[in-house]
């Protein structure tokens, strides 16, 4: 019984069943709630949810824009800029730590300390240092994901077999070539794996910060509509966040398949 393989059809069927079960349970719950209180908005019916989606997508009377478009633009820009700077910084720091022992000795203690500070809690620091809005969010995400990513790169480079390093020298490699053409390529799949795992935390940092101080963005909208108990807008927003995270995961996996096909080969 334990670890017994099942057919692919059965596996897909079970996966679909779990989603269907969630939807059915929700339908049953909202129907029961509406029998008790027909004007309830905490567990909206499918019809109410439809209205919520329309409300999110149509041009709003007061702000003259579409909520989803404005929020997605703000949140997306912040997230991608933050991820970009974070990954770039982590690669530079991680490679430097892995290749040069003085850098390792210098940066390691600091990095392991800073890794323990919740970036959202340090929001005020970023506000003081780099100003409001875009800069602040970007700095927060970048510093939030940097310690883990830098550590991943560092450990991957650290475990790079020294035989291969010597081999590269006997093949005429310069130091720069060993670092960029050999060691970085060796660490790349691990870095991409780690970036995939860090999308979640990065979103948590950003949404939380937007909830605290934002005036546009997914976190801001969810907080506002939650206060109004407009769950018909909140649930679609949560679904969009889930869909976005899933798509990012998928895209990064595809990127890894394209850049590092070797990491998918079986031994």
């Amino acid at each position, binding site marked *: 019984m334990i670890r017994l393989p099942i057919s692919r059809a059965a596996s897909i069927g079970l996966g679909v069943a779990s989603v269907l079960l969630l939807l059915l349970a929700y339908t049953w719950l909202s129907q029961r709630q509406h029998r008790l209180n027909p004007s309830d908005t905490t567990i909206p019916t499918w019809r109410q949810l439809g209205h919520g989606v329309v409300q999110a997508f149509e041009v709003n009377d007061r702000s003259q824009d579409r909520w989803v478009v404005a929020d997605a633009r703000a949140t997306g820009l912040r997230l991608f800029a933050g991820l970009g700077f974070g990954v770039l910084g982590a690669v530079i720091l991680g490679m430097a730590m892995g290749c040069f022992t003085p850098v390792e000795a210098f940066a390691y203690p600091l990095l392991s300390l800073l890794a323990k500070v919740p970036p959202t809690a340090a929001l005020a620091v970023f506000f003081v240092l780099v100003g409001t809005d875009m800069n602040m969010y970007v700095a927060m995400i970048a510093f939030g994901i940097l310690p883990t990513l830098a550590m991943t790169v560092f450990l991957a480079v650290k475990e790079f077999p020294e*035989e*291969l390093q010597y081999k590269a020298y006997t093949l005429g490699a310069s130091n720069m070539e060993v670092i*960029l053409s050999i060691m970085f390529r060796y660490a790349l799949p691990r870095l991409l794996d780690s970036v995939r795992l860090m999308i979640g935390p990065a979103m948590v940092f950003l949404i939380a910060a937007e909830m605290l101080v934002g005036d546009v963005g997914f976190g801001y909208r969810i907080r506002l509509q939650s206060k109004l108990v407009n769950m018909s807008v909140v649930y679609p927003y949560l679904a969009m966040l889930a869909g976005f995270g899933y798509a990012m995961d998928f895209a990064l996996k595809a990127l890894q398949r394209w850049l590092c096909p070797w990491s998918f080969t079986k031994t």
Partner: protein
Amino acid sequence: MPSLPPDPPLALECRGVHHAFGPKRVLGDINLKVARGQFLSLVGPSGCGKSTLLRAIVGTHPPRRGQILLFRQGEPAGGCPVDGPGRDRGIVYQHYSLFPFLTAEQNVAVGLMLDRTTIPYRCFQWGKWRRLRREHCRQAAEVLVRLKLEDARRLYPQEMSGGMRQRVALAQALIMKPEIILLDEPFGALDEATREDLQNMLLELYDENVRARQQGRDPAHTLIIVTHELNEAIYVGDRVVGLSQYWDWRRAGFDQFPGSTIVYDKASPVFKPDSARRFEAFARQREEIRRAVFDPNVLQERDLHVTYWNNPPSPPAHLPPSPAP
């Protein structure tokens, strides 16, 4: 036995090499000359410093004292002291011999890329680099075919068998045409049949040398193979050098143990590729090596079993001389 030119030029020389790890002396007074075209087997008990000597020759771990000289083809005599690892010495390790992120063909071609192009060239002259790369891959494919690896071209190291990996690693070294190729227990992790296959491949390289000499050309391959397998050492090499910590250093005038030294250096019979392996044919030499190099109870004078080869340029007779004594 092919006759040799009177003074084969040297490929490598170790002069008074000493090495120690802290207070522990590992290598003591190693003097070794390797002639171009020689296949030298380096044997010795575990812990005698075979790998240390090899690392010193590669240049990754320089010795405490002494010099290692490399004689490059077409360069004036005198030799260049080894200073760090470089493209003139190829190396094949037992493990981690290939870059895991490259296919067999790319692994072989990567040396040409690293040696002949630079990062700025590859980034900023992308069109030219792409054309050159195709040429590199073509050359790599040629070497792979020569080593019977055409089926492995597109495989990643993780998808290859251990024997294939070591073959590709040798191809990777061969394409650079180094002055000397160093093999550190290359077949230690392989099963018997694969091992025989690969030994045969080395004999084919030796055969290329023999033919080159017959045609009056310089032999192309010089090789040092570190092994703990005596049969392999005698079968593959044309000269067996034994490194051992068991020798009579007091009689040699040392007050304290100076480290392992060379206690055995003799020619070994040369075999044709695919010839029958009649190991009993060199049973005597095997026993001799076992006594002289491996037996902790036999402490003999260091040069009892050492042949003093004529130094170039003094003629005449040279390696490999008559079959095993």
